[in-house]
């Protein structure tokens, strides 16, 4: 019988990084080393601990990373609590990749890019950012606006400082919600910061974060003169199958697992506001 996507593969946790008080980044390898499967930036995978649960997570590592996959996971429910208790060497089940991806090889190619992320919303965008960095000649200006509640809640802070901010070809703008000792950077919410920075309206925007942040960021971008066709986001709804059959992650007639998770804003605007 042919393989069935509902029957998962097994991966092994080869590294665990405590990113923030409630976010850990897990490195996953196939049992014989290497990656369990290939993916494109923005795609997701179903991770599970049998007997605990299974859920969809964005793959935060770039496909250009040929050694392993990474998942940045916030502790917020049954399964994620269990995952946060894992040590290196723990095996998990994994299946995917699922969904579409940011159009890095088509629409985004040659464009000036603006990434806007809030909190754990950086996880799916990090895959694209590192893909773009590894294929830098294919893209124009790259600007990243990233914010979190506090300095301690910035996911991948070390990578941002050591690699992204050290990269002359990328502009990084960080912000935190409230003033904090030891922070001399920008303070304020992400949508306001984007408006203050007033990026060139030629840029193509990739945005991910809490729904409220996305909503105000989009409104701010429109004020600046951006159109909905310039903005991409990635969605999240409850999923069981990952392939558009179990029937629960639809927005109108689109399944987030299969037709998404990446949507251009004008596409999303044509669908019911039920997410």
């Amino acid at each position, binding site marked *: 019988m042919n393989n069935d996507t509902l029957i998962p593969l097994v991966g092994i946790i080869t590294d665990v990084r405590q990113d923030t008080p409630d976010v850990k980044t897990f490195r996953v390898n196939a049992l014989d080393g290497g990656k369990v499967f290939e993916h494109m930036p923005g795609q997701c995978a179903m991770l599970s601990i049998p007997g605990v649960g299974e859920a969809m997570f964005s793959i935060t590592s770039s496909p250009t990373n040929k050694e392993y996959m990474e998942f940045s996971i916030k502790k917020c*429910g049954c399964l994620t609590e269990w995952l946060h208790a894992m040590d290196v060497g723990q095996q998990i089940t994994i299946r995917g990749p699922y969904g579409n991806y940011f159009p890095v090889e088509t629409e985004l190619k040659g464009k000036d890019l603006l990434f806007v992320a809030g909190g754990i919303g950086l996880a799916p965008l990090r895959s694209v950012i590192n893909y773009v960095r590894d294929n830098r000649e294919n893209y124009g200006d790259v600007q990243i606006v990233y914010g979190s509640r506090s300095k301690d809640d910035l996911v991948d802070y070390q990578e941002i400082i050591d690699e992204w901010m050290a990269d002359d070809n990328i502009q990084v703008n960080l912000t935190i919600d409230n003033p904090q000792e030891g922070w001399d950077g920008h303070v304020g919410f992400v949508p306001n910061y984007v408006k203050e920075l007033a990026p060139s309206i030629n840029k193509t925007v990739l945005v991910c974060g809490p729904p409220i942040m996305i909503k105000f960021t989009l409104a701010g971008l429109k004020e600046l003169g951006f159109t909905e066709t310039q903005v991409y986001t990635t969605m999240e709804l409850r999923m069981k199958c990952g392939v558009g059959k179990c029937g629960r992650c639809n927005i109108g007639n689109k399944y987030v697992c299969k037709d998404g998770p990446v949507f251009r804003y004008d596409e999303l605007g044509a669908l019911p506001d039920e997410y």
Partner: protein
Amino acid sequence: MLKIPAEKINDLFDRIAMQQTLYIPVDREDKAAEFKKYESGMTLSKALKTVRSAKDFFFPQTENLAEFKLSGKNIEVKDIRQENEDFVVFGVRACDAKSFEILDKVFLSDPVDTFYQNRREHGTIVTMACTRPEETCFCTTFGINPTVPGGDASVYFDGESYFFVPFTDKGKAFMASISDMLEEGDVSKLSEVQAKAREIMTRLPLANLTTDSFGGEKLMEHFNSEKWAELSEACIGCGTCTFVCPTCQCYDIRDFDTGNGIKRFRCWDSCMYSDFTKMAHGNPRTSQLERFRQRFMHKLVYFPANNNGEFGCVGCGRCLSKCPISMNIVKVMKALEDK
């Protein structure tokens, strides 16, 4: 046309059951009909339709997907799939036969659901033409002709004999396996029975229901309709409509600790349930209005939007007779119709 006299139908069932598993509709003690595995002596039900649809044969209410052995930090995945045995479902009505085509669009589209495909490949559907459609029937609304029910082979009953017509290779193989029990028959009375059934269909209360106001292009118009509040007001979210529906295919995947490993299974689920879309960080459908709307929008708008205008309802009428608050897709269609 080849036929078998009514008094010999059990001989035929015995023959089929010798070769493969046979399911036929039989009457329960409460007179309601349900599909049962045939055992010698069982009587074919005369009911128009079974309480539950025939979707169980390909998409059972629960089925195991995989097993896991956990030891320390290690996980072993066991593929427990087995090639299904051949089986025959006899007496499927036109509405249920059509529902398999709708389920095919979901489960056989890429990536193929092998659990469903396995059953589908091994099952032979022998349909039975309707002779007396009921007042809850509205299959013709969806272009179904209950007197020509399709499937792999069809059976037509003229009151005295069962006439057989094969359509697919599976249906022809089925016919070949019973050909020595069939004889050539006169179809003149059958034509009368079919004419009578067609005449009944024109007089049914729902005969004039149309799908003209529905389809993918009506997405925002119907989603934003003010009628949903009143329509959904009394819905108790029991999910009965979903469970008796031949086309409802939403499922849940869950794990069960057997004490000796983990079994992962799937089971029918319902968009009418409050935790259907509930996540750790929230729920996009918090009210029964939203959940109620989802079910009907899926059948009348979303499904046709994704499937060249084909609707996700076959007009079997089960939800009409089973809903405890007497709400149903017909009332929804009439309320949303362009006036």
